[in-house]
């Protein structure tokens, strides 16, 4: 479904990704794990077009994303929940969701998608007239994921969804990832919370200093010595 080949990217003269290749297949949940500063967020941003690769190719079902204007990538079916949520803090929950359904294709389905999101997150329905910035971290994360789902994506990119949340909320977020995947959504998730994320995804890549150092099924990586020593502390 999504295929990256030898992608290089960076900011100015700083290169963050070195020849990264990875693949996400239809219906899979895939994680990219790795330490702080490994280039995980850059990887997500290069897929959704927020930054452009300096070399390599990115394709979604054969559509070249590098040649697509960034604001059209969401129309292709990729929704990106950015790091630290990035809601519009002085807009209501419902207006934030409206922005998630901004594309011409999503507008006629607004009520339908809103019902789906409210079903998934009843708390958002209660808070729909509240300013997004006034909610708790967990509620904001729900709103950010809900906003991404408004465009009816086929591939959901989640960047550190558990960051800064209480353990019980983190549990809910990972549970949600499982449910979304069970519902047929393809998910690519970047996480530092390695042990927990590996329990909900099918496969994972280990990204370190801008390149892929290991790849495999979640079970294999959980069992692998390098991962265990480096990230699990056991």
């Amino acid at each position, binding site marked *: 479904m999504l295929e990256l080949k030898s992608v290089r990217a960076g900011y100015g003269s700083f290169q963050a990704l070195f020849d990264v290749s990875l693949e996400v297949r239809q219906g899979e949940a895939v994680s990219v794990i790795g330490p702080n500063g490994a280039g995980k967020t850059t990887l997500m941003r290069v897929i959704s077009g927020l930054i452009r690769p300096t070399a390599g190719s990115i394709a979604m079902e054969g559509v070249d994303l590098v040649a697509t204007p960034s604001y059209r990538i969401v129309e292709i079916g990729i929704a990106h929940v*950015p790091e630290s949520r990035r809601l519009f803090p002085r807009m209501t929950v419902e207006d934030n969701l409206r922005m998630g359904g*901004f594309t011409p294709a999503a507008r006629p389905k607004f009520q339908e998608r809103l019902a789906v999101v409210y079903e998934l997150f009843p708390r958002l329905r209660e808070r729909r007239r509240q300013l997004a910035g006034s909610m708790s971290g967990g509620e904001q994360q729900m709103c950010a994921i809900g906003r991404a789902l408004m465009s009816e994506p086929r591939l959901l990119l989640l960047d550190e969804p558990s960051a800064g949340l209480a353990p019980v909320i983190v549990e809910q977020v990972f549970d949600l990832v499982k449910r979304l995947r069970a519902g047929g959504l393809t998910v690519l998730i970047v996480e530092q919370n390695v042990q927990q994320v590996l329990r909900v995804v099918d496969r994972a890549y280990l990204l370190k200093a801008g390149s892929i150092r290991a790849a495999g099924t979640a079970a294999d990586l959980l069992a692998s010595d390098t991962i265990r020593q480096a990230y699990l502390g056991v």
Partner: protein
Amino acid sequence: MPVFDLFLLEALINGIFLGGVLALLSLGLNLIFGVIDVVWICYAELIMFGMYGMYFLYTVYHVPIVLAAAVCIIGVGLLGVLLHALVIAPLLGAAPINQLLATGGVLFFLQSAATVLFGVEFKNLGLRLPVLKVAGMFISYSRLLAFAAALIGMVLVYLFLTRTYTGAAIRAIAQDRQIMPLMGVNARRIYLITSALGGALAGLAACLLVLQYDVHPFVGLSFGPITFLICVLGSLGNFGGGFLAAFVFAEIISVGGLYLDLEWGYVFAFAFFIVMMFVRPEGLMAKRS
């Protein structure tokens, strides 16, 4: 002081009328700053061109006044689009000081162009609107009209911003510019629409101001500085803050002018501004974050 109350009331009412027009002026500037992150230093000069437009259409070519106003609003809206496309867009990535200097340059360009094209004489519509007598007070019909039209203009902008997808994108882009592509929003298109809207507001302001003031190439200096101060006092880019600050300023001008000369009203207003900058440098509605 037996007649004190009536004069004070009249001044308060005039202050509210003036506040409506100042609020309209500040809304246009705030919209541009909030969305595009650029200050149109030449904003009042766009208004000046709109006032000349009204003068020529109505007084010289005898176009019906409502039609002239519509042409003027659309015309200044297009000027806003041109300003964005020719001057702002190429400088979006440049340092803020360069953007300020560029729009400052446009200010002098427009002033000089107006001097060459229209001369330095004061022109007016030659329209005499009646003065209403209500309960012993004199209420200027042109001020009342300007206030009502400004209010309608602001309500329309409010509805546009809150009821449409484009309006929601305009509010959103002012809060988080970088993630707009993730929503499927083409920021360049939103900038152009916002510039057209900012220009159209300047056009509407021109139609209202030309009812009360003569137009000349330097008329922008009468509204430009005070519009900036109002926007800063209301926290630059904050629409509600600008609205509130406009009425605060207008009442100080109007009531201050009641006891001394009208010019003293402005002195008090600017003094108030300076004091406020010490007390609340971020403006009345400093963002809490």
